[in-house]
């Protein structure tokens, strides 16, 4: 009721019924508590108020005739009186504290986009704000400039929603050039949204409207802004600021343009500082200790050098040296993991042996790169994966096939048919060899089943299974022993862009167009976890080496880190200026490298939630990122037909983690991309789609030859 009264007052003011307005105001002050009656009296006395009285103060009512903005050039006295209150009025109906002129409250009540704020004035408000910000002090200007983009978008969307097409168009024309260059893609999408109906179908824009754009501004700049917006006739902007922007204030020095540019770019602004405060267990799980199989392996003559069999216990090679629990590592049973089978143990033994012969990489010792080029793929190669022991390579294609090749001379064999299986001698020692069918052994196996291009593939760590996800919305599990499809996991009803097995097998994650990532287990036909929060498609999903966290990169230009145990988002990383297409965790689990369409590789410290490095050099989308086996080198492959090697050790050393940095998340990134770049290797005309370090630190790369 009180709000209705205020609405009535504004209407009167707009209609220039000054006397009635004064009378009402006086009466309203007198009848502070009994506002219903005063409204009634006013309704009878003022002409044309009936229409206003019909306006219920509830939300979501259109045709609000109450002006939330005072008319321009109106009575300066009333204008000044209107803007004097700076306190936001709560809805608890605290009448006594309220002066009648509480503009922000009324507008909030009459709901954001349903206000009929005078559309022709939007340009004036915006340019007024622009002028103010440009005249402000240098140190504040950079921070306040962050306001331009969200305000521009929200004002434009408001005009479109209220069906002021021509005003929206002219508003867009006038101001879209002022925005930062990295928002150009969004602006292009916006330019095609000219009608209210267009907005309905665009989920990303709807999410943008309903979620709050986060800005991080220092307290001084914020005070400056607030003072300005409330003293001038800029209340429309103040309303939008309050409604749609979340201003995360920090105490301290305002940030420079460079600092800000490094962190902004996502669809929802930056990350709130508290979003990155949760504890993340980024350590690795302890390797299980076992010694018996090792000795057996040795005794079977695995040592080619003919050395005498070493009897020393190999326990400390396999397990971690220290018995203490790493404080940053999750407890072993935080999430249930499958037990180690004998074949897994054998695999680990092989891994250890290979690790012993691994080449130690560094700036002086760069890896050799072996490139696998897919010929005659006709631009159809959409996904590649290589097994951990580099024995098989799989390609997902736009013609919906999945093709598996053997990289080693050993051919791909499938298990014999049941009738043949009944013939073999089950007691023989090499039964595992006998069950394989020699007659159909081949280097290539083609798997048919999907009904759309295959966008992601992933081998299981034990090489028994292969996952593929496709535009048809399913994720398929294939057996690599029979080369047939076992399960189709349906859940995303929209294209699935990426999938990956967990490093321990059994779990896998998929992310798709429906803006969520799902965690599955191979023996459940429904997902176990749903990670919802991104504003646009999830384009890339990766497991952390300890399998407790999942990183998702999205087309909304953020990377989120999710906890598998409870599905919470524990980190939000903003800074990329384009959709993210590649993610790589460092082998020690502490760092994350991300690549996007903007050609930059960003490095993040997971524990602190900070950006710690930026690698510039690529000129096109980065589709492949991989750390070497011991984390010394980061390799990146891109659509610009190059593979670049970066010095990871140097990039991560000397991290400044003082209190201010961790508290505010502000970093000063050194411009050291050139120092960190160790080498650029060009292919003739093959974009690099996948990178893989073998167990001995040979780098394998894959891509499809494209003839233009």
């Amino acid at each position, binding site marked *: 009721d009180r709000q209705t009264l205020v609405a009535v007052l504004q209407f009167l003011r707009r209609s220039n019924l000054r006397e009635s307005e004064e009378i009402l105001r006086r009466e309203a002050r007198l009848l502070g508590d009994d506002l219903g009656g005063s409204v009634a009296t006013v309704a009878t006395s003022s002409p044309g108020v009936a229409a206003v009285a019909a306006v219920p103060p509830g939300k979501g009512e259109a045709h609000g005739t109450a002006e939330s903005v005072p008319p321009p050039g109106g009575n300066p006295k009333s204008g000044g009186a209107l803007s004097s209150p700076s306190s936001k009025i709560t809805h608890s109906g605290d009448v006594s504290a309220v002066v009648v002129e509480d503009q922000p409250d009324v507008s909030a009540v009459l709901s954001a986009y349903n206000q009929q704020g005078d559309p022709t004035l939007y340009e004036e408000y915006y340019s007024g704000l622009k002028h103010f910000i440009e005249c402000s002090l240098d140190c504040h200007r950079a921070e306040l400039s962050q306001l331009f983009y969200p305000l521009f978008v929200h004002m434009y969307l408001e005009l479109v929603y209220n069906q002021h097409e021509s005003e929206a168009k002219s508003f867009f024309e006038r101001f879209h050039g002022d925005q930062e260059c990295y928002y150009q893609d969004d602006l292009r999408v916006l330019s095609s949204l000219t009608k209210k109906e267009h907005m309905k179908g665009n989920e990303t824009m709807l999410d943008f409207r309903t979620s709050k754009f986060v800005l991080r501004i220092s307290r001084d700049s914020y005070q400056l802004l607030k003072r300005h917006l409330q003293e001038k006739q800029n209340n429309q902007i103040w309303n939008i600021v309050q409604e749609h922007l979340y201003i995360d204030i920090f105490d301290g020095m305002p940030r420079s343009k460079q600092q800000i540019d490094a962190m902004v770019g996502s669809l929802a602004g930056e990350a709130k500082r508290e979003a990155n405060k949760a504890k993340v267990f980024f350590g690795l799980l302890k390797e299980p200790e076992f010694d018996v199989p090792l000795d057996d392996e040795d005794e079977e003559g695995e040592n080619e050098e003919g050395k005498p069999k070493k009897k020393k216990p190999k326990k400390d090679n396999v397990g971690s040296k220290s018995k203490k629990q790493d404080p940053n590592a999750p407890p072993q049973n935080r999430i249930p993991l*499958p*037990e180690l089978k004998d074949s897994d143990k054998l695999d680990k033994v092989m891994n250890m042996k290979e690790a012993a012969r691994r080449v130690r990489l560094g700036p002086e010792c760069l890896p050799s790169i072996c490139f696998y080029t897919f010929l005659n793929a006709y631009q159809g190669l959409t996904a590649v994966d290589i097994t951990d022991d580099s024995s098989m390579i799989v390609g997902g294609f736009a013609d919906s096939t999945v093709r598996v090749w053997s990289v080693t001379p050993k051919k791909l064999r499938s298990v014999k048919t049941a009738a043949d299986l009944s013939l073999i001698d089950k007691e023989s020692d090499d039964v595992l060899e006998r069950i394989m069918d020699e007659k159909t052994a081949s280097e290539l196996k083609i798997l048919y089943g999907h009904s759309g291009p295959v966008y992601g593939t992933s081998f299981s760590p034990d090489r028994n299974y292969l996952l593929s996800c496709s535009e048809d919305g399913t994720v398929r599990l294939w057996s690599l022993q029979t080369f047939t499809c*076992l399960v189709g996991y349906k859940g995303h*009803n929209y294209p699935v862009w990426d999938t990956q097995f967990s490093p321990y097998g059994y779990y896998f994650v998929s992310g798709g167009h429906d803006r969520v990532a799902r965690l599955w287990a*191979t023996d459940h036909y429904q997902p176990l976890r749903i990670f919802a929060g991104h*504003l646009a498609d999830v384009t890339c999903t990766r497991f952390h080496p300890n399998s407790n966290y999942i990183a998702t990169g999205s087309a909304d230009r953020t990377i989120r880190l999710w906890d598998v145990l409870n599905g919470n988002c524990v980190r939000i990383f903003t800074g990329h200026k384009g959709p993210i297409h590649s993610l790589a965790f460092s082998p020690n689990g502490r760092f994350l490298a991300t690549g996007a369409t903007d050609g930059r590789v960003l490095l993040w410290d997971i524990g602190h939630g900070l950006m710690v490095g930026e690698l510039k050099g690529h000129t096109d989308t980065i589709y492949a990122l991989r750390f070497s086996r011991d984390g010394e080198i980061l390799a990146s492959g891109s659509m610009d037909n190059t593979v670049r090697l970066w010095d990871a050790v140097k990039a991560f050393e000397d991290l400044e983690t003082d209190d201010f940095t961790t508290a505010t998340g502000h970093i000063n990134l050194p411009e050291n991309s050139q120092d960190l770049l160790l080498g650029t290797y060009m292919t003739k005309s093959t974009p690099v789609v996948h990178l893989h370090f073998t167990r001995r630190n040979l780098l394998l790369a894959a891509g499809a030859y494209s003839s233009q």
Partner: protein
Amino acid sequence: MEAAKMASPKSAPKDAQVMAQILKDMGITEYEPRVINQMLEFAYRYVTTILEDAKIYSSHAKKSSVDADDVRLAIQCRTDQSFTSPPPRDFLLDIARQKNQTPLPLIKPYSGPRLPPDRYCLTAPNYRLKSLQKKVSSTAGRITVPRLSVGAVSSRPSTPTLGTPSAQTVSVSAKVGAPVSLAGQRFTVQIPSSQPAGKSATPTTPTVQNVLINPSLIGPKNILITTNMVPPGAAADPNPLKRKHEDDDDYDAL
């Protein structure tokens, strides 16, 4: 807009030029030439569908001509039907919250390949052997021949679905249960018929079947045989071991 027409090297029809301009406005600079054709086709198909629907709606409302409301309604109905969009954010957050509350299930150790229950897997045979009841006349002593019809077969790379029916019939009498090693030949197998109601208890007149068995169709079992109920008097073979007539029309077109 007139001035902004794309100057294509060949003279493209006007709507192709408009489509090229649209692509340019939306920021798409690199595309294969066929994209314009595909976009035009889509636009044409979409607009005709909408207008046809709108005509139906307007005639339903007994209007003399199609007006904007009909078109709007047609668009709305088609959008809900064909162009679905992903669920809204609050819905996703809601189901995510629900799903994430349940703890992760424990993993049973040593349980073999971890796959969902069979009905959710694609591992079941997608065919079923059909047995055909042929009318058995008492005089001819014909035998019922089960036909094997094979439906769509799963994507197995190599094995043929049915072995070539050999002209030779080799009659082998075998008791049920003895694993017979088979290689696509025809066998006659004597099986004591499962108890028909009222039949004599003694399995004196075994029904004889001609069965073509293909080893690849056999799953875990050894022999896949369908038994037929034959009226007692009909299947009077004097000598079950006698070589049977091969009926040419017994085989389906394979």
